[in-house]
């Protein structure tokens, strides 16, 4: 079983969870993800990794209370309880090597986890690491100990309204750095709309960008094609061929649209769950 070993609130919406999953922890590399199932009637949800500890056999994740599954995960699953399934690691690892100045930019929950995880490995590989983490506002930003600061040689926190850190988005900070020719490669995760803009920005400066293309998945092993994207004119599966891709080759409009394929169903399930809790 996949026992929950730690759980902590990150902000009013996101939380941190650590789970016993030695089979994943021993094999995980940056860029890879897991698929979770809360219980036997649950859905398979892909989740980014914050850290994977080979010694303890545990993996850490940042999770957003977003739909029924993640609300339930926060409400009903506590330290000592077990998840029904943790499958992984899935996807292809990114190349961890010396690039020079490596930036990771992120503006949503999964991206924040990837920011720390990726830069940790990149720093160990001798790179100069630059982390930019964007949050909407102070209330939706993480406590100090969950930021990517410890693995960043240069660190920026921004909020869109300026209530914490620099006012603005990672795109603004990154543009300045690109302007100063300070970045050799950018990695990114988080909101798809921002990643599309990131692709345009880095293209403008001729800097490579490798980003997480988060898509709706079922199995996560290349079996269903739900996460298919158009990449350099070819069909690729985000779960098997990604999830991290060269941002310049991704057909972003389709990716963004396909992310909302089940919004109606998602709302039905969420409403039903919240009603059952007596919240609504």
């Amino acid at each position: 079983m996949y026992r929950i070993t730690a759980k902590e609130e990150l902000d009013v919406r996101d939380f941190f969870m650590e789970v016993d999953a030695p089979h994943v922890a021993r094999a995980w590399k940056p860029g890879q993800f897991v698929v979770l199932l809360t219980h036997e009637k649950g859905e398979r949800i892909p989740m980014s990794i914050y850290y994977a500890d080979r010694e303890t056999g545990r993996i850490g994740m940042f999770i957003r209370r977003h739909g029924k599954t993640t609300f339930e995960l926060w409400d009903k699953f506590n330290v000592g309880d077990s998840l029904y399934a943790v499958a992984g690691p899935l996807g292809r690892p990114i190349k961890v090597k010396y690039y020079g100045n490596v930036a990771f930019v992120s503006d949503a929950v999964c991206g924040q986890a990837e920011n720390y995880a990726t830069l940790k490995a990149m720093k160990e590989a001798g790179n100069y690491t630059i982390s930019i983490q964007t949050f909407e506002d102070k209330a939706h930003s993480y406590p100090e100990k969950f930021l990517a600061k410890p693995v960043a040689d240069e660190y920026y926190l921004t909020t869109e309204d300026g209530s914490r850190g620099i006012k603005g988005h990672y795109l603004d900070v990154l543009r300045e750095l690109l302007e100063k020719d300070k970045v050799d490669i950018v990695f990114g995760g988080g909101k798809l709309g921002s990643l599309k803009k990131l692709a345009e920005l880095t293209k403008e400066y001729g800097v490579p960008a490798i980003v997480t293309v988060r898509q709706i998945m079922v199995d996560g092993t290349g079996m269903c094609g739900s996460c298919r994207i158009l990449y350099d004119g070819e069909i690729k599966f985000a779960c098997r061929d990604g999830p991290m891709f060269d941002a310049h080759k991704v057909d972003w409009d389709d990716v963004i649209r396909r992310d909302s394929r089940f919004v109606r169903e998602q709302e039905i399930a969420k409403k039903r769950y919240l009603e059952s809790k007596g919240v609504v």
Partner: protein
Amino acid sequence: MARPKPKLIKERVPTPERPVEERVKDFEEVNLGYDFASAVKEAERCIQCPPEYAPCIKGCPVHINIPGFIGALVKYRDDPDKAVEEALRIIWNDNILPAITGRVCPQEDQCEAPCVMGKVGDPINIGKLERFVADYARERGIDKELCEAELKNVEPVGAKVAVVGAGPAGLTCASELAKLGYKVTIYEALHEPGGVLAYGIPGFRLPREVLKCELDRLKELGVEVKTNHIVGRTVTIEELLQEYDAVFIGTGAGTPKLLNIPGILLDRIYSANEFLTRINLMKAYLFPEYDTPIAVGKKVIVIGAGNTAMDAARSALRLGCEVTIAYRRGREDMTARVEEIAHAEEEGVKFEFFLQPVEFIGDENGKVKAVRFEKMRPLEERDKRGKRKIVGTGEYVTLEADTVIIAIGLEPNKIIAEEPNLKTNPDGTLVVDENLMTSIPGVFAGGDAIRGEATVILAMGDGKKAAKAIHEYVMAKRTNA
């Protein structure tokens, strides 16, 4: 003196089916199967060809002693439990999953096709008799007892084998090896074992409790199943070889082929695998009681005419949709089992032939709203599979659809093929020798992973053959050590 000629009964004893109007409302099994009395009656029709001649045995990919098990039903007709026990013992010699194969095998192309009775009337209903034996045994616990008795004769050989994939090939290989005394561990990527039996074949063809019972037997044999382990990612073949004496790869053909035509990324265009996995494995038809959703409209077009297409079409029908199967060839070229096509038609699935999709047309929100097809026409010439070749006519037709399911075939999953030193063919299947050994010594493979797209029974046949080859390999290695 010649024996008096037995009277031939030309017609099959029918098996009851649930009425169409009732069954299209749920995912419960359609065919209800035989009871003991009707099974014996059908068994009596068999003229008991001698095993060295029996065409049914030759027609069966795993060569089950069919006249033998049918004969046992007749011989012990006064003691149903004994009759079934004997019949099951005979079937198990060659096939450990009769409740499954009795339901999903294309018997009309295999054992039943050459049946001598078929020359004068209906062939013996071998599939339904096999299913009856398995079902009766399960309901009375006869299979469990028989399994326990067989286990008593198992001597541990002190060797370990890893099986990759808990589908038909892997399950068979695992159980054969367990019976030979091996310690077997199955690595399964999904959260439940069964492979295509769990994610692909709907409950109305293979009830989940039947599958569960067959899987439970594996546990009784001492086989361990590690779910959520993706070999190639969680653990590599190389790592497995360090821990185990041999490895069997039965990873199937799980990657859907998609049409490379405009509009393939539109919403509500599913691969049959996605559609069926959501429904069968994740129970999306019970959403929101179960968490996985499925979004369908009113008008569904299924592209393809194999068993998967029929399964997808009939599943969509059960979600309340109007369903049309569009196939680029003609009626007689459809690859699905006769029974599945008949069931689909009875249930109201419509068929359109000689239509090749050329474009998916979307609405302003990116949802599919129609499919544009080119009309095809058949030629006299046949391809290597014996199907008439087709050519485009240059005429086009557009059919409305708010949901499309693509069921044009599958290919092996590429994750396992990323393994260094594991040689693959251009179509992605693994290269194996006559003993089913891959390019890595000690690593064997079978089923759709080496065949591309075949049947459950062929995969099981491979699993069995590989188990024998693995046993010989391990024993030879031991002698040489």
